[in-house]
């Protein structure tokens, strides 16, 4: 029995934009269990990043956030900046996509990690340094004593991301949110980093949230997968189940569109035309209906609710795919 670490309920985020309202996140509900891995998958504009940043309070002030996000019982939405900072970096940590932008180019990496350590704990400088070296070892940075003194530009992308992970782990968080953390990395480096994250999860008992556009990544590394489209969750299931019994046509379309090594060259790709909807003018019915092969009149008229139609497997569709193997 895993306990609920993070309970998000009916989270909504809107942005004002030139007189109109952009509904970036439109009522999202999910739970992260301690020690487990949840992947949130979606394309750009799906709301996956915005919803996570809303939980940790990292959105611009113009954002309007409603709903509930309880971390071990404490409501995070609406917390003051100061109180949020107590959680951020301590119990909840984030790793972002582009380490080049997240790291200070004029500071040695050792100092930056030490900064994270000292932000949440009262340790002396030498103690902090010890902890930093320990963290660098934890993230499998070769020759940590020397790397301590290097600058970000002297490191490769993979190593920079390890530094970001070290910063995130500085206070042994209970939840680590990896927001497209490996997207900018080469596939070989990505495999290294993902393996590291999983090992750390096992060793530290951390929960892991993977936010990505890469369905393959989700399949390989997550326990449970959420698929988002136009600000809403459209399907959620344990990874094994989702990929063998996909229901939501959008999820199926995502599967079919991924290039596969097994496919022969020039095999025709099943193509979905159109584009995601304008978040400032969402349709009344299902957001995916304009592009969906299976759409019918009721899809356009009314948005299907997200419901647990099968145990452990939720989807929001009036006409889901028949229970078929994912292609």
């Amino acid at each position, binding site marked *: 029995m895993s306990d609920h670490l993070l309970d998000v309920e009916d989270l909504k985020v809107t942005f*004002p934009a030139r007189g109109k309202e952009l509904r970036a996140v439109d009522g999202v509900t999910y739970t992260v269990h301690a020690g487990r891995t949840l992947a949130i998958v979606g394309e750009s504009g799906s709301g996956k990043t915005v919803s996570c940043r809303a939980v940790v309070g990292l959105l611009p002030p*113009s954002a309007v956030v409603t709903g509930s996000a309880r971390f071990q019982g404490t409501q995070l939405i609406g917390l003051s900046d100061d109180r949020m900072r107590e959680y951020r970096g301590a119990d909840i940590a984030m790793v972002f996509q582009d380490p080049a932008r997240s790291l200070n180019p004029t500071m040695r990496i050792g100092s930056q990690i030490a900064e994270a350590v000292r932000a949440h704990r009262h340790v002396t400088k030498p103690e902090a340094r010890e902890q930093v070296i320990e963290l660098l070892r934890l993230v499998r940075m070769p020759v940590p004593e020397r790397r301590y003194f290097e600058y970000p530009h002297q490191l490769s992308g993979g190593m920079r991301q390890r530094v970001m992970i070290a910063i995130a782990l500085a206070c042994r968080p209970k939840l680590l949110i990896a927001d497209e953390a490996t997207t900018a990395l080469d596939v070989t480096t990505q495999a290294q980093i993902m393996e590291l994250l999983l090992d750390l999860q096992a060793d530290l008992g951390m929960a892991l949230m993977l936010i990505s556009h890469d369905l393959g990544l989700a399949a390989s590394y997550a326990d449970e997968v959420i698929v988002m489209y136009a600000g809403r969750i459209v399907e959620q299931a344990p990874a094994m189940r989702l990929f063998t019994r996909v229901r939501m046509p959008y999820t199926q379309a995502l599967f079919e569109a991924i290039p596969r090594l097994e496919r022969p060259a020039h095999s025709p790709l099943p193509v979905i035309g159109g584009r995601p909807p304008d978040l400032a003018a969402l349709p009344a019915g299902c957001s995916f209906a304009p592009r969906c092969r299976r759409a019918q009149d009721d899809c356009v008229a009314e948005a299907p609710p997200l419901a647990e139609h099968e145990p452990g497997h939720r989807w929001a569709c009036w006409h889901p795919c028949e229970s078929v193997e994912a292609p």
Partner: protein
Amino acid sequence: MSAPLPDLLAPGGPADTKPVPRARARPGWVRALRLWGPAGFLVLMLAACFIWPNIYPVPNPVRGSVLQAGLPPLSPGHIFGTDPVGNDVFSRILYGGQISFEVGFGVTAIGLVVGGLLGMAAGYWGGVTDAVISRLLDILIAFPALVLALAIAEGLGPSEVHVIWALSVFSIPAVGRIARAATLALREQTFMLAARLSGTRGWRVIVRHIVPNIAPQLMTFSLLGIGIAIILEGALSFLGLGIPLPEASWGSMIAQGQQTLSASPDLVLIPSAFLFATVLSLNLLGDALRERWGVR
């Protein structure tokens, strides 16, 4: 890279969402006012200085009668009063404004055209062209301002045209360096490579790709430059190196008014106020345009 979503949210690559306008905290009419306020004022000033005297008779700015000397503002027939020689201040403001605007726009136009061309050529072709042009611009910038103006005034006699030449020596390298830097930055962009691969060459690339892209930067810079030129003209005239008396120039009016500062402070205050308001409007307009065009 175009960033459709607010910076915090874009994960780092354009994808297929419709570009979203940036969230603006300020209401639309405030933004419009910041643009059209100063613009409107400048248009008003230009109209007043250039059009009004031609359609509505004003007293001659240089042939006032001594009988009317030293009248205070709001005297009948002389809304701003008269100067110690009897000239109507209001009409001198208008004609002085003409000078100011002519000098300001003239200097800036020369700077834009000559400086812009030199800067773009230096930035685009690099190598020897860049070396030669950069040195030329450096020399121009190094010229001491007053010495040059003095020399021109002494050698060629003070006049409006000479003032424009003298001030152009500074506007050309100022614009030139900006144009060069902007061109250098632009040259590395992918679409420049794409344009060359499409077959466009040489000056055509500059005219059709570089000019439209650096124009906003140059234009906003030049607006500030107009203000600076006007002030410099004022300073030169103040020092007697610019527009000679009895012709009206805001600068020389201020210089003149100095002599009777305690008795008639308005003779200094009025031209100063106009100078201030005009330059401020130019700066505000430049800021508003810079914001609208997204120039950094």
